[in-house]
């Protein structure tokens, strides 16, 4: 399959890229990893007139930490870079858990986290992770630079708030104030399939009490879902089995799954509950784990 015809530019600087986008009359698209955009173009779901390939723009392939612990992920940082990242393994359990579950190993070599956020697929894994962590997307355009909270970034399936002449240059994950814990679990029919259900949990605890809770759901609604009631119920609580169960029930209640070839709505909702409970039980440690989890561990 060929994409429909387009003009192609590969600028060497962000300033040039922004200029090209501004001249694109709203019909230009940014190409980073291309692992979602190129398939969409081949299927003619996307037919941009101008493709601005940012792969030759230097200095966007980073992921780094500020002295205060804030994480920055550049627009050309590939999923594989995050999968191998020693920085994430030590400090960012939710991202470290998600990175190896994105698509498949070969797609991870090219695809990018920032591109995945921009693509705004309700079944995209990173959107849930960044939402649960309270992250944001930084865009640059002719009017300068702005940070957009992830909660406001996506306006609908495959739609985000970027202006046609803006480039998403990085994702920012705020520093945690207390001890971080959490994870990402994904149910997929096979490696590389879209998530049947995905759950991102990012909590911070201090002296056994949850000081911040982020829970977001992948693939169980028309957009990425923040399980806000579950988050509120956890905050200020210890990660006891009853608190975990209540949060899991509330998160399952926030899901809006539809029955399709990947499973029934009831099954998907059940998996949300199971995944939230499983991640939180692991975050609580072996002492606080509920009987179900203990049984699983023994089995």
């Amino acid at each position, binding site marked *: *399959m*060929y*994409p*429909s*015809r*387009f*003009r*192609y530019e*590969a600028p060497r600087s962000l300033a040039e890229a922004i200029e090209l986008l501004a001249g694109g009359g709203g019909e230009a698209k940014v*190409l980073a990893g*291309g*692992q979602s955009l*190129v*398939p969409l*173009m*081949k299927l003619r779901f996307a037919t941009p007139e101008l*493709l601005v*390939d940012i*792969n030759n723009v230097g200095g966007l392939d980073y992921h780094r930490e500020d002295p205060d612990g804030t994480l920055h992920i550049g627009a050309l940082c590939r999923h*594989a870079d995050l999968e191998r990242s020693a920085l994430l393994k030590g400090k960012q359990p939710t991202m470290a858990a998600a990175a190896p579950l994105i*698509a*498949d*190993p*070969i*797609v991870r*070599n*090219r695809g990018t986290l920032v591109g995945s956020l921009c693509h705004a697929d309700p079944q995209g894994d990173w959107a849930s992770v960044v939402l649960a962590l309270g992250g944001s997307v930084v865009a640059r355009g002719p009017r300068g630079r702005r940070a957009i909270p992830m909660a406001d970034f996506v306006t609908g399936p495959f739609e985000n708030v970027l202006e046609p002449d803006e480039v998403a240059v990085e994702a920012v994950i705020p520093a945690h104030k207390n001890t971080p814990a959490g994870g990402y679990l994904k149910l997929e029919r096979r*490696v*590389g399939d879209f998530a049947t259900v995905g759950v991102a949990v990012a909590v911070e605890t201090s002296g056994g009490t949850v000081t911040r809770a982020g829970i977001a759901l992948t693939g169980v609604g028309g957009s990425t879902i923040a399980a806000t009631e579950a988050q509120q119920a956890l905050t200020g609580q210890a990660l006891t089995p009853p608190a975990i169960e209540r949060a899991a029930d509330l998160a399952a209640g926030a899901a809006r799954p539809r029955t399709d070839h990947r499973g029934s709505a009831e099954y998907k909702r059940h998996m949300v509950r199971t995944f939230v409970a499983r991640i939180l039980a692991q975050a609580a440690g072996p002492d606080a784990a509920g009987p179900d989890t203990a049984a699983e561990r023994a089995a």
Partner: protein
Amino acid sequence: MTIVYDDRDGQAASDIPVRRIKFTINGAKKVAEVEPRLLLAHLIRQGLGLTGTHMGCDTTNCGACTVLVDGRAVKSCTMLAVQADGHEIETVEGLATASELHPLQEGFKEQHGLQCGFCTPGMMMAAKALLAANPDPTEEDVRWALSGNLCRCTGYQNIVKSVLWAAEKLRPQATADGSQQ
């Protein structure tokens, strides 16, 4: 090099954008003129006549079209040919020398790692990237690294064995080279 397209758009020839790119394929330097919408897989198969790279699903699922770009495994149906500008491409044709099979090819032969053979070039290229990064993989490492490549014949068992066989064969050479330094 000439690539012939179907003309479905009825545009004037002068309106069709063309880019000149330079790249290396299996060690040979090349120059090509391509339309930006040409996929890397098409450049390799139609432009260069290297038909060892197979097009399977054309939807980024199956991995039959896997090649190495600067040493990293990439699905060539999901990268534009223009993006190869300035880069090094390696395809299955680059594995063997004139007189010798690559240990991966030997491994697939010895361990019966293929039946119909359609997925084999992609499997071998994904495996090559794995062994370059991890010369001593476990079975689990091999299964993980090949999880983006589909095979409908073998049940994967012999493919995994083939890659482990190649790793074993490549290892003593690496040790010998290391001890000489």
